[in-house]
C-alpha cells in the first residue's frame, strides 16, 4: 500500500464509521442480554443459572478473542485499522477477509502488497468487502423468521426431533472442523486430541465431585491444555 493510500485508510472519517459498526454490534449484544434476562424466569431459568451462563460465556470467549486478535494484526498492515475493525468485528473471519481483500485488489488489477496499490484500488477492496460481507446479513435478516417457523412446525409434529437435530448438527459441524484442522500436521492432531480428552475428563470430574464451577472453565482449560501439549511437542 502506498503511503498516501495508508493515510486515507487510517483517516478520521473511516475511523468514525468503524466505531459506528462496533457500536451496532455492542448495542445488539446488550439488547439481547436484556431481553433474554427478562424471559429467563418465565421458562424456569433461575437467576443463578443466568449468572452461570453469562460467566461461562465470558470465560470461554477470552481465549478465542485473543486468537482472533492475533490474526487481525496481519490484516491491519494490509488494510489499515478502520477497515479491519469493520470487517473482523462484524461477520467474517480473518481468513475469509484476507481472501476478500486480495480478490478486490485483483479486480482492480493490482496485488494487495504492491506499491501501486492506489486509493482507487483500496476503494475497490472496500466495495468488495463491505458488500460481499452483506450476503450473510441479508439472508439472516430476511429468513431467520422462516427458519423459526419451520422449526415450530417440526416441533409440533415431533417435539423430540429438534433436540436430536440440534445436537447432531453441532456434532456434524465440529466433527468436520476438528478433522479439517487435525489433518494439517501431527502437532495439530495432538492439539485436537489433547483438548478433546481433557474436556471429557474435566466434564466427568465436574459431574463426579459436583464442581459446577469447573464446567464454566472447561473450554478455557481444555483449550490451553490442547495448545500447550502441541507447543511442547514442537520443542523436541
Amino acid at each position: 500500500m502506498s503511503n498516501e493510500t495508508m493515510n486515507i485508510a487510517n483517516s478520521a472519517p473511516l475511523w468514525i464509521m468503524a466505531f459506528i459498526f462496533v457500536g451496532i454490534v455492542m448495542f445488539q449484544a446488550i439488547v439481547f442480554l436484556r431481553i433474554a434476562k427478562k424471559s429467563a424466569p418465565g421458562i424456569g431459568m433461575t437467576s443463578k443459572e443466568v449468572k452461570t451462563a453469562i460467566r461461562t460465556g465470558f470465560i470461554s470467549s477470552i481465549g478465542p478473542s485473543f486468537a482472533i486478535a492475533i490474526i487481525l494484526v496481519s490484516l491491519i498492515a494490509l488494510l489499515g485499522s478502520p477497515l479491519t475493525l469493520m470487517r473482523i468485528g462484524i461477520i467474517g473471519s480473518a481468513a475469509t477477509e484476507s481472501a476478500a481483500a486480495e480478490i478486490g485488489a485483483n479486480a482492480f488489477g493490482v496485488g494487495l502488497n504492491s506499491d501501486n496499490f492506489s486509493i482507487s484500488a483500496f476503494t475497490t477492496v472496500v466495495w468488495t468487502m463491505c458488500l460481499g460481507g452483506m450476503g450473510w446479513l441479508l439472508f439472516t435478516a430476511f429468513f431467520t423468521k422462516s427458519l423459526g417457523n419451520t422449526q415450530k412446525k417440526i416441533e409440533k409434529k415431533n417435539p423430540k426431533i429438534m433436540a436430536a437435530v440440534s445436537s447432531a448438527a453441532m456434532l456434524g459441524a465440529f466433527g468436520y472442523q476438528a478433522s479439517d484442522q487435525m489433518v494439517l500436521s501431527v502437532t495439530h492432531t495432538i492439539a485436537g486430541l489433547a483438548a478433546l480428552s481433557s474436556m471429557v475428563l474435566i466434564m466427568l470430574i465436574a459431574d463426579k465431585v459436583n464442581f459446577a464451577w469447573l464446567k464454566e472453565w472447561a473450554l478455557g482449560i481444555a483449550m490451553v491444555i490442547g495448545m500447550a501439549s502441541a507447543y511442547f511437542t514442537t520443542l523436541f
Partner: protein
Amino acid sequence: MSLNPEKVTPDEYVSRAGAETTNSMEIFHNRAHFWGRLTLFTLIIMCFIPPIYMSFILDAHPGWGAIFTGLVGYAGFIGIMWILEPITYYPTLGIAGTYLAFLTGNIANMCLPCSVSAQKAIGAKSGSRKAELAGVFGIAIASLVNIVVIVLIILGGTYILSIIPPAVEDAFAFVLPAIFGAVLGQFAYKTPLYGGIALAVGMIVLFSPIFSLIKIVVCVVITIAIILYLEKQKD
C-alpha cells in the same frame, strides 16, 4: 411471567411444557425478531456508507466494472455460504443466536463454543428452551468480549501483542484444533458413540472428492441422518 419458576421443569420440550413457558418463549422470539432485524438492517445500510464515501466524496471511484468484478469474484469464492451457513448453524443457534452470531461473526471458532459451554455449565439439554436462552447469554457476552478485545488490540496496536511471550504466540498457532477438539469433547463425554461417529464422518467427508465449501454441510446432514436413525432405533 411465572411467579413460581421452580415449578416448571427445566428441560421439558415446548409441547409438554406449560403454557407460560411457551408464552414467554413466544414473547422472547418476537422481541428477538424485532431487535435482530432492526440491528441487521441498520448494519446493512451502514455497509454502503464506507464504499460510497470512498468513491464519491474522496473521488476515488474505481469504476463500476472493477467493483462488479470484485463482487462476482467474492460471490464465486464464498457466496454459497451466504445461504448455507445460516441454515446449517440454525438448529444449534436458534432464532436469537442466529441474529447475534451472524452479526458478530466468528461463529465456529467463538460463538458456538461459548454457546455450548454456557449450556453445559447449567446442565441444559440441547434443543430445550433453557439451552436456547443459555446459548444466547453465552454468545451475547462473547460478542461483547470479542469486540472489546479487538478494539483494545487495534488501539493498543502492536504493543499489547509485543508483551505476549513468543511461546504463547507460538502456542496460538494450534488454537483452532484445540477449540474444535474441546467442543467435540463437550458432546462426546455424554455420548461418546456420537462423538466418534461425528469425527469419522468428518474424516470421510474431508477426504471425499466434494467441492470443499459444501463439505461441512454434507457432514452436518450425514451426521443428523445417522443420529436420528440411531435415536429411532432406541425408541
